[in-house]
Every structure is written in structure tokens, then in C-alpha cells.
């Protein structure tokens, strides 16, 4: 048995609402059999249309080629199959819902009913019984009487998850004895003395005269390709990527070491010192480099100093020169770790 009653006939305890009930207004479908019949037809039509749309879905799936592209204003160039499958399945599902709700609104009773609530707290006797049971259990187990058992149990329960923490250690297999620690790994890149600077996509070495004043090139070390094949990952690329820009040597205000530019060509890490996005938005007039992720701005004419934004460190600069064939090379690795800061960085 439920304790519901039609709203209004219940002598409800009107705690907050010292007002009478609002009279129930009958709907057209309650009073006019024609309206009820019409609603019945509407609901059934929606369900029927849903069935037809499932068939339409199958027809579309079978007949439309997946590579057919159509142009639809606003939506642009889109795959016809995706659109038709979405339309047919979406509408067939939607109509089931619309039919059910129309049915509920027009044909099912719209009289609100009242159900009483009960306080969430258990009655006092239940609480007393629970307490008595707890006391009995405590007494029978002797939990209070055997302090050594109690304490060792608590200790054991506290410690038993610890092996799980150890098991997580090999999520990274590096850093064991003799191997480099994370901070050492983060502090070194593939750049070393005499390493040629090559264009990042083509791996072509670069001569100073290839780069006009105001020009910018994204570059990587020549040994990167070999390293990527050996390691099978992009880790080295993520640290070694640089950008080369050329400016009038007299415009260079400061750099991170004496004579680190070559005839006005400067090389900076491409990885933002904020949280590590690659940077490529360069404004040649101001020599500013802008990170597209969080808008940290660095001045490449002034040792990569932070001009604006959330980055706290200069962009690391790479000392460069030319080898005996006249190609641009690095003179050393970066003097500081590239990319975002980390605890051990100092």
C-alpha cells in the first residue's frame, strides 16, 4: 500500500503554507473525447515515425558513400553520411521521447498527489537496538579487552597498502643506481659543441646567408633524426627544438653569454619556460616572442627576458657559431634546463 492521496483530499499538515489548495483545471483531453482521440493519434504517429526513421537510417547507411561530401550553408563542407545517420537516428530517438511526454501530458492524469515525508533519523528504539548490538559485539570480540590485538591490528591495517606504492615505482624504469635522475635528464639536450643546426622538417643544414634579417627558422640538432630512430620517442625533440632569428647585431641589447650570436643570428629554446608550450609567434619589429598558450612574452634582443605574462624565466639561449664548411652549429648545450621549472632546478 502506498500512502499517496490525490492532492487536496488530504487533510495535509500545512506547515509553511497556511493556504487552501488551488482548484484543479481540467484539460481539453479530459473533457472532450475528440481532443483525447487527437492526442492518441499524435502520440501513435510519433512512435510510427520513429519506426520509419530507423528504416531510413538503414537505407542511408547502405546507400550513401562514406566519402560523399556536401556543402551545407553554415555547417560548411560535411560528410553526407554523418549528417544523414545523425538526422535519422537522432529524430527516431527524439520522437520516442516526444511521444512518451505527450502521452503523459495529455492522456495520463495531471492531478498532483501528496505523499508524506518521514524524518530521516531512525526511531529511538532502533538506535538503542543498534547500540546494544554494537556493545554485544564489542564485548564478545574482546576488542576493548585485548589492547595488543587492537593496536597490532590497527598497525597492520595502516601498513598493508604500502606495497602498492612500491609497485608504482617502475612506472618509470629510469633513475636507478648509475642512471640519470629526472633533474639531470631534464637539464641536458642533444645540443653539444659542433652540432649542426638543421631545419626542423627537412633536416637541411643552414648557412648564415640563408637567413635574412628579420627572418625566423624553427630548427633542431642534426643528430635528432638518429636519436628519434634509436629511442622511438619524441622526448629529445621536445627539449632540443630551437628557433633561430636574425636581427641587426646593433639591436642586440644583451644575451646570456659573450658573443653567443653569430652576425646577429640568435638561437633560443622553442619550449616556453612557463609550462612548456612550443613558441613560434615572433614579432620582428620588437623582437618579441609570444607563447600562444598563455601569452608569455620574451624579448629575444635582450637575452630572452620575460616582458609580460606568467613565465618567470628567460628563454634559454643557445650559443652558436659556424663550422669550417660555413654551416651554423651549436657551440655548447644550453647553460640552463629548457622548458618549465621544476623543484630540483635550483
Amino acid at each position, binding site marked *: 500500500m502506498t500512502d499517496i492521496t490525490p492532492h487536496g483530499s488530504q487533510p495535509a499538515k500545512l506547515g509553511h503554507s497556511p493556504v487552501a489548495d488551488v482548484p484543479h483545471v481540467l484539460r481539453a483531453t479530459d473533457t472532450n473525447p475528440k481532443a483525447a482521440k487527437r492526442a492518441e493519434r499524435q502520440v501513435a504517429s510519433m512512435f510510427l515515425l520513429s519506426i520509419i526513421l530507423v528504416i531510413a537510417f538503414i537505407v542511408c547507411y547502405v546507400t550513401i558513400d562514406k566519402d560523399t561530401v556536401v556543402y551545407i550553408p553554415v555547417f560548411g563542407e560535411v560528410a553526407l553520411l554523418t549528417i544523414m545517420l*545523425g538526422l535519422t537516428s*537522432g529524430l527516431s530517438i527524439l520522437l520516442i521521447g516526444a511521444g512518451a511526454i505527450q502521452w503523459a501530458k495529455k492522456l495520463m492524469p495531471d492531478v498532483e498527489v501528496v505523499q508524506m515525508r518521514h524524518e530521516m533519523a531512525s526511531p529511538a528504539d532502533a538506535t538503542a537496538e543498534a547500540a546494544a548490538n554494537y556493545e554485544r559485539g564489542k564485548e564478545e570480540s574482546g576488542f576493548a579487552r585485548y589492547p595488543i590485538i587492537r593496536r597490532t591490528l590497527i598497525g597492520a591495517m595502516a601498513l598493508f597498502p604500502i606495497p602498492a606504492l612500491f609497485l608504482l615505482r617502475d612506472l618509470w624504469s629510469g633513475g636507478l643506481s648509475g642512471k640519470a635522475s629526472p633533474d639531470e635528464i631534464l637539464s641536458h639536450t642533444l645540443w653539444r659543441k659542433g652540432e649542426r643546426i638543421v631545419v*626542423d622538417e627537412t633536416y637541411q643544414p643552414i648557412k648564415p646567408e640563408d637567413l635574412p634579417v628579420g627572418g625566423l627558422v624553427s630548427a633542431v640538432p642534426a643528430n635528432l633524426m638518429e636519436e628519434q630512430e634509436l629511442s622511438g620517442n619524441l622526448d629529445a625533440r*621536445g*627539449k632540443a627544438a630551437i628557433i633561430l632569428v636574425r636581427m641587426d647585431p646593433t639591436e642586440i641589447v644583451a644575451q646570456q653569454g659573450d658573443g653567443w650570436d653569430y652576425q646577429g643570428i640568435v638561437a633560443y629554446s622553442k619550449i616556453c619556460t612557463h609550462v612548456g608550450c612550443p613558441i613560434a609567434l615572433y614579432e620582428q619589429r620588437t623582437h618579441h616572442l609570444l607563447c600562444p598558450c598563455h601569452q608569455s612574452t620574451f624579448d629575444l634582443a635582450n637575452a630572452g627576458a620575460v616582458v609580460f605574462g606568467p613565465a618567470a624565466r628567460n628563454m634559454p639561449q643557445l650559443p652558436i657559431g659556424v663550422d669550417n664548411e660555413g654551416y651554423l652549429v651549436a657551440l655548447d648545450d644550453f647553460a640552463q634546463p629548457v*622548458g618549465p*621549472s621544476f623543484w630540483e632546478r635550483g
Partner: protein
Amino acid sequence: MSTTSPVETAGAGAATYVDQRLGSNKFLARNLGKVFPDHWSFMLGEIALYSFLVVLLTGTYLTLFFKPSMVEVIYDGSYVPLKGVSMSEAYSSTLDISFDVRGGLLIRQMHHWAALIFVASMSVHMFRVFFTGAFRKPREFNWIIGVVLVTLGLGAGFSGYSLPDDLLSGTGLQIARGIVQSIPVIGTWGAFLLFGGEFPGTDFISRLYAIHILLIPGLILAMVTVHLIMVFTQKHTQFPGPGRTNDNVVGYPLMPVYMAKAGGFFFIVFGIIALVGGLVSINPIWVFGPYTPDQVSAATQPDWYIGWLDGALRTMPNLESHIAGFTLSWNVLVPAVIIPGIIFTALGAYPFIEAWVTGDKSEHHLLDRPRNAPTRTGLGVMAITFYLLLFIGGGNDLIASAFNMSFNSIIWFLRISYFVLPPLMFVLTRRICLGLQRRDREKLLHGYEAGRILRLPHGEFIEAHEPLSVKELAVITSKTDIAPIPTPQKTDIDGVKNKKYAIQSRRSKLSHFFYGENVPLPSAAEIEAGQAHVAADAALEAPLHAYEDADQISTFHGGVLHHPGMAATNAEQQNEH
């Protein structure tokens, strides 16, 4: 007259079979007629639930085709611009889902849209629960579960859009790596363990996959189940209205009306997601290209629900400390770890803080009108303002380019606004709420202003008032006046020092801040007097209505109706026009 069909006979047999083993009929007897109150805002939580179900269904389908692997392959599918390009298997299989599995793009887009709707509806549902005080006793646990669900929802979304390993998602992961690395002491190791070494490594996509398809959805499913069981056990809250009290629940029975409406609504949500998924492109990963750590697309934007975090990162000043050979990156730590930590902790703790401040220990099943808890409403608006400012920060580059503004000025505007606008909105909201309370009191005492000016025979103008409708009267009088906690005494009558004075005094002050300025409801006698007053007005108007009904007034002058007793004056006025 109902007849029993063979299907029903079979169904009854099955019900008996199950009942003899589980006693399920007792449950059905209690609950088939269970009453659920009706209100459009109660559908917000339903949308969240249904969109989550759609996410589960479409996500399961996607797992059949997606390969969570970072092994480099050469793409050879039907998307011509990327043919022959080296990419991870994750990205390549996502391209296959989009171009070579028929209906694959539909399901992928449905999955993404449903996820966005899931997070959005959870957020708005949370606003509704907050502003109506539905989190109060006995529903505090469910509020905490809700906060956990929102957090998990953000995690599910972020882990999901990071999986395809396209240029945009990879950049998001790179930022995540930078954030983990900023955590003091354990951050660097944490990042190495998560990524299996340096970024990007070759392990992360498969690890993230396990988190995205098992861990997070499993937790969400468990939490949603508990959430619903609690709603069911505690019965739904209801908005105030005629005959609705704190002790009853007024609405439609589960069988059949609520079942048809809620079940039908599932199909509506599902159907709309399918339509949007089919018609509106989202996250076109083929445009971004495969991920490589040295490339980035301009105007990098996360999904909307991560926007506030990105905004916090963008607007934080560039503070970093170096102590004893170690680095503390406040510029990352504060916006990405500390602020979100504070926000979610404060959200979870709010019901307990409010209950402590107000000293309110009673059960609440009748929802508060936001105006009746001005401080709470103010705090809510304040939090939303702060959130929106962070969100604007997340789109500062888009705003800068769309409106041709300097992003530097937007950032500075935001840095200052974080401290100015939320408190301002708090004060403003609170004042508006108190004003509305005064208006409610006014309505109870004098009825509502009908907007008709009445001229009495002796020349006095009065504005006609009309009695409140039954519904409005019920809604307004649903307000519960809670007295602020009284100021404690330093010493008791015997002169013994009150050791808890400091904390009691603070609590009393907060309580006064919370409820002190509330406008109390008039007493029953006052309301009665108000009714009488309104009735008197109505009596004055009665002859006028009769006059009106007889169609003797042909013109209205500026809303002024002329009293039939003043024929001469009426004529005079008509001549003026």
C-alpha cells in the same frame, strides 16, 4: 475495465519468480506510486544523468576502434591531406574512426557533445541546488558526492580529449606535465612516473586510456548510483507552493506519469545529442595534425570547462622563488594547484560552514527562494563572477583579436577585477535580495499594485491593490525566519569566565551577517489586516467595475479611470484632451 494480456500474465509470473527469491514486490509496493515533484529545474540533474549514459554507450563503441598506442605509424587512410604522414597509432585510429568507419564520426561527435553537455548540466544543476539551499540537512552527503562528480567530470573530459594525440590535445598534456612538475618536492618525479620518463614518452596515452575508460567512469558510475539512491531515499525536495509543506511531497506518481516523463526525457536528451553529433562538427582533429612537441597551433584553447584553469594560468603574475637550491614556481602552483584546491574544498565544505554559522539543525525539504538567503545567494553570485573572470582569462587571446584589444590590458583588467568585482557582486546581490524581501513583505501587507489609478469622489487618487493569488501567497509565506545566534556573554551569572567566548562571538557575528538583515514575514494578524485593507480597496473599485462592465467608459486618460460618481470632473478632463 482492464483486461490482462498474455504479456502481462508472463510479466506477473516473472515478477513472482523474482519476488520469491529477492522479495522485490515489497519494494515495488512501496515505490511504484512514489511521488516526484515537478519543476523544470529538476531536469538539469536528469540531463546530466542521461548525457552520462550516452557518453558510456558511445564511448564503449569508440573503444572497439580506437588504439591507445603511441607507436609511430604511417597514415594510409582516406583523409588525403595526411596520407603518408608519420603519426601515433592513437591519432591514426582516431582518423580512421572519423573517415573510414561508417557512422564513426557521428559517434565520436556524439561522445564529445554528450561530454560537454554532461559537465555543463552538472554545473547548472549544482547552481540550482546551491541557490535553493537544497544541500541543507539532510542532503549534505549528496552535495559532497555532487562536488566529487563535477571534479571527476572535469577529469573525464580532460583525459578524453587528450587521447586522440592530435596537436591540440598534446599541447594540453604538455601543459599538464608542466603543472605536475611545479609541485614542490615530488613534482619532477611525479611527472616522470606519470609519463614513464620524459615528455611525451611512449607510455602516456595507454595509461590515460585506462584512466579514461575504466577508472573515472567506474567512479562516476558508483557515485551517480549512490547519488540517486540518496535522492530516492530522502525523497526529492520541492519548491514552495499551495499545499506544499516541509512534511509532504506533492507531485506525480512514479507509475505512470513520472516514468513516462523521465523516461521520455532520456530519449529527448539522447535524440538531441545524436542530432547535434550528426550536424555540428566538434574537435576536428584532422585539422590540427599529429602531435609533435615542437609544434603548436595558434590560439590554443582547451574545452570550455578547463577554460577557467587556463585563465588562472594566464593571469597569474610571474612569481618564482629559489630557496636553498630548490625552485618554487608560484606562477604555476597557485593558479593550477592551490586555487582549484581551495575552490573544490570550499565547495564541499559549504553546507557544513553554513549550518555552523546559522546554527540551523532542522531538516529542509522545501526549497529556499534565493532572495530569502541573501548572504548565500550573494556568495554564490560572487563565486560565479570569479569563475567567469577566470573563464574570460582563458579566452583573452580570442577576445584581444576579436575586439582588437591589447591582451596585456585584458590581463591587467582581470588581475584587478578578481579582487574587486566578486565582492561588488556580493554586495549588489545581497542588496537586491533584501529589496525583494521587502517587496514580498509589502505584498503580504497591501496586496500587489494593480497598476490602476482610481479617483475617488472627493478628488483623492489612490492606486488599486489586488489580493495575492493562492499560489503567490503560499510561495511568499514559505519563508522561514531564522533568528541570528545571540551575542554570547563573557561571563555567566556567577561571574565564571566563558572559555568559548572568542569562537562563540565570531559565530554570532557571522550568523548576524548571514541572517541579521533579513526582513521578517509579517505576523498572521498583520497579514489578515493587509487582506482587509485590500478588500476595502476592492470594495471601492466595485462600482467602477460595474460602470466599466456597462461599457460607459470610452476613453482612458493616462491609465486614470474616472469614478462614476464624478461625472462633471470627467467631462472637464475629457475636454482637455
